[in-house]
């Protein structure tokens, strides 16, 4: 057992390498998780953006946090998909009958989710810079943004694990992500909530995406994030813990 523990991180590295190859070899994944959000961003900046009044002088600055969340929400649907495929084929059984810690398989998928989403977030930010995104934020603010985005990714990844483990079909494994992808549209991600009618506005102002978007926007424009940062953290950590507990329960049942 001792040796199995010593190899834990090495084995997880093998699992990470495996799923990263899956991503890089799937044009579909790359298009959906990186190119689609970029197209969204271009569409909003160059087509709708002119008609939208926001508090920032530059619409890209306003919109970027929401685009990043959409990219992450699409990214994690592929985690569910990859996990589902592993369950369906015999490969999971092969891993589980090998002398490795069984949890490396699951944690490998979680790590892949973090790494691949980080890569698509970085690419999207670079494109945003090209089309005029500017930030006066210091290192500390950027680190805080990275931290919040990682927590957001982890929270959604554990939801994806539940979906991937309990889905009955490939479509089912990724369908759960559509409502999550849609959430930023009913938040302050693209337009300020002030313009929305009563009930929609109440929903928009109190759902997790708004506080996360407001926090990232404030951090990137060097303004005080106020209470939003704590609400955002509470949402991310809360969802993550609940989803993790359920995911582990489903995992133990299925394996």
């Amino acid at each position, binding site marked *: *057992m001792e*040796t*199995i523990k010593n*190899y834990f991180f*090495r*084995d997880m590295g*093998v699992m990470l*390498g*495996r799923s990263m*190859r*899956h991503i890089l*070899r*799937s044009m579909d994944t790359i298009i959906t998780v990186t190119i689609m959000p970029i197209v969204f961003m271009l569409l909003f900046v160059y087509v709708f953006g002119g008609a939208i009044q926001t508090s920032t002088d530059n619409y890209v600055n306003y919109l970027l946090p929401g685009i990043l969340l959409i990219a992450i929400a699409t990214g994690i649907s592929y985690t569910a998909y990859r996990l589902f495929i592993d369950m369906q*084929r*015999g*490969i999971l*059984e*092969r*891993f*589980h*009958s*090998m*002398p*490795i810690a069984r949890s490396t398989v699951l944690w490998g998928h979680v790590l892949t989710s973090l790494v691949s989403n980080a890569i698509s977030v970085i690419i999207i930010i670079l494109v945003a810079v090209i089309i005029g995104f500017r930030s006066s934020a210091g290192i500390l603010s950027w680190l805080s943004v990275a931290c919040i985005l990682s927590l957001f990714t982890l929270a959604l990844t554990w939801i994806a694990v539940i979906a991937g483990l309990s889905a009955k079909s490939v479509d089912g494994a990724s369908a759960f992500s559509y409502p999550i992808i849609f959430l930023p549209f009913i938040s302050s991600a693209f337009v300020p909530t002030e313009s929305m009618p009563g009930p929609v506005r109440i929903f928009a102002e109190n759902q997790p995406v708004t506080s996360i978007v407001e926090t990232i926007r404030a951090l990137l424009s060097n303004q005080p994030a106020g209470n939003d940062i704590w609400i955002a953290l509470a949402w991310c950590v809360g969802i993550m813990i609940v989803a993790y507990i359920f995911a582990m329960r489903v995992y133990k049942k299925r394996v």
Partner: protein
Amino acid sequence: MTPNEIAISVQGLKKSYKNITVLTGVNFDVKAGSIFALLGSNGAGKTTIVKILSTLLKQDSGNVTVNGFDVLLKPGNVRQSISLTGQFAAVDEVLTGRENIVMIAKLRHLSNPYQVVDDLLKRFGLTDAADRRVSTYSGGMHRRLDIAMSLVGKPQLIFLDEPTTGLDPEARIEVWKIVKELAGNGTTVFLTTQYLEEAEQLADRIAILHKGKIIVSGTLGELKKLFPPAKVEYIEKQPTLEEIFLAIVGKKEEK
């Protein structure tokens, strides 16, 4: 048999899923270095036995030891000494054949994971296809890769769960050849099959599983004594489709 010579020992094995009883007291021993065939119809519980022996499932009661280790008490040691080739080819479709074998070699923590690869690819006739994605492989190639992956790290015992189901006659004969070679090198092979012919071709000992129990077990000779006495009849024997197929294909290859 002395304990060292027994690769698998199963005593009073019982297992049910919720309210369906699958195994109702299974007993058998498998001699080290032999080929043991578990014969039974679909749904007889063959895969359940394989899963319990390979530590994927826990039995309800009964004593099961594999290579001298109790499957419940020392699952880590069991996994170290076995390889499972499940019913559905447990290969990664997105990776190439070479990458699949390297991945398993890394997970088995071999000091030089790349060393065994070329040898295995050659042995299983996959050298030309080594750098192609597995999704382009034929059914027979899938199976060969699957078995090749199971041989990485030279486990003492290999489980083959219906290794030829769904294969065409040629591919099946290839798999038979591989299995015979394995046993020739001292590896214990535990094989499940629905085909009496396959068990006849390969196994040193055959056990027939029916309704959750082993109803007979022994060498082919011993089993044949239990069959109804042979009657002499004169019949015109039509060649089977398989014989026709092999005859035609064989002729083609001679040219």
